[in-house]
């Protein structure tokens, strides 16, 4: 398909012997927002975590199949390189507590030993914070600790931190589930704006959120991908019975 950036081929993930992701084939479209939904324990977070190989932190997780980024199997590349191309934002905002806002944004460079001129760092910080819609609020406090921000601001700081590495794909694991409604709507607006420059894959429990911001929706159930398609189609006319029951609140 034209515009595919990330593809999983016959993807299986096991925790010891338990199968968490069962034969998932999915094509993520470039510069679109794809939502992954499903009831708790359906494997959606596991799937997401495979996409930048952060699942490897759990030694019992085993992956079979292929994940192609720009046609290249990212399971065969060094995970450190994969993670620079595929950024991730987590459920709870987690700016680095010992660093200032400024240092948080460029932490990906500093910690990787990438040396740039001060002016280039300044530019990256301003650019990333603007993209994350946080610049106006923090531009005078760049050298204060990131942990003094509100939860929503912290989460946007984490998005800025991920964006600073200029990733091709941004993974978000229920990024608004720990936030209040106003912060949530800030982040939703931000994501819609961001898809111009980066492909977004978001795991969410919030059906309305998926409906509001995503272009494509996938629905997982018991580790299998049971439905994948354009969001308006999946929401109005789901092909799978389980999806329909989930969308109408009968389970999940």
């Amino acid at each position, binding site marked *: 398909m034209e515009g595919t950036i990330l593809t999983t081929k016959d993807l299986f993930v096991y925790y010891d012997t338990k199968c968490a992701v069962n034969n998932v084939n999915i094509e993520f479209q470039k510069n679109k927002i794809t939502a992954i939904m499903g009831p708790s324990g359906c494997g959606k977070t596991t799937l997401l975590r495979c996409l930048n190989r952060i699942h490897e932190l759990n030694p019992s997780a085993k992956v079979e199949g292929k994940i192609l980024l720009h046609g290249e199997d990212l399971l065969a590349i060094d995970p450190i390189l994969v993670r*620079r191309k595929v*950024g991730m934002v987590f459920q709870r905002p987690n700016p680095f*507590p010992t660093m200032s806002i400024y240092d948080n944004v460029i932490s*990906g460079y500093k910690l*990787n030993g990438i040396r740039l001129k001060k002016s280039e760092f300044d530019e990256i910080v301003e650019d990333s914070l603007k993209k994350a819609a946080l610049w106006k609020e923090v531009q005078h406090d760049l050298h204060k600790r990131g942990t003094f921000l509100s939860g929503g601001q912290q989460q946007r700081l984490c998005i800025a931190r991920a964006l600073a590495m200029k990733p091709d794909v941004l993974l978000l694991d229920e990024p608004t589930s720990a936030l209040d409604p106003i912060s949530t709507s800030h982040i939703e607006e931000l994501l819609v704006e961001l898809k111009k420059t980066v492909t977004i894959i978001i795991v969410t429990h919030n059906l309305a959120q998926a409906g509001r911001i995503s272009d494509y929706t996938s629905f997982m159930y018991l580790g299998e991908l049971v439905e994948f398609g354009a969001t308006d189609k999946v929401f109005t006319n789901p092909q799978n019975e389980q999806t329909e029951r989930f969308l109408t609140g009968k389970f999940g």
Partner: protein
Amino acid sequence: MKDFSIKWRIIKNNIFKISIIGISLISIIPLFLILFFIFQKGIASINLNFFIAGTKPTGEIGGGIANALIGTVILVLIAFAIAVPFGVITGIYLSDNKKSKLASWVRWAVELIQGVPSIVLGLIGYAWLVLPLSKLTGGKISFSALAGGLTLSIMMLPSIIKSTEETLKLIPHSLKESALALGVPYYKTMLFVILPAGLSGIITGILLGVARIAGETAPLLFTAFGNYYMNVNILKPIDSMPLLIFNYATSPYEDLHNIAWGASFVLVSFVLLLNIFARLVVKRWKVQF
């Protein structure tokens, strides 16, 4: 009847409250008595000369603790330089590998070292460091500050390892994940993200470790040995505060007893200050997540 039972309950409750406060007060009395006694006995010997003068030959009045003071500083520095890197790195390993076999062996070993009497560690230092070195160099090097420092470093390890492990365990897992998700290698994640976030707890552990070894006598008896003369060569026997106290207090001379009291006062003050400082570090440098 009902009235009576409620009253009785309140009385029982008050008896309990009073007794826990009372017993707590009683249990700190010895501490304050010790501090008071050492202060009273020791303060008289303290003057500038006490800190800068070395030991005088027996029979001469005066003299100070300079050689012991310098000796203790050197011993603590050697122990510190060895125990801190080993302890912190082992702590990192334990916090990160909760279930591995090696980790459980290491934890077990740490508990064991903590339980070994310090005199036994001193003997081990003698058998493993002093004797082989002496044999190797034909007796040129036998008792030495190096052997003393190494022995003390073993005593210091458990407190550093445990505090590092416990502190790092409390740091949210997501912090590590988010650093790794930026493509940061594991070692940089641990050294520049996780370790700074737990610094206050680790420093506290180190300070308490120093406080513990600064007053140790037994491990030094067979290793650093003690020295009545000023020495800064780490391959030579060296004096330390607790050794000086031990030697002087068991001597028959009144003025040496007084120096021992003065040295006790200095040592106790040092340990006390270190403990207070450790508490301040926890408060001040506490990282918020």
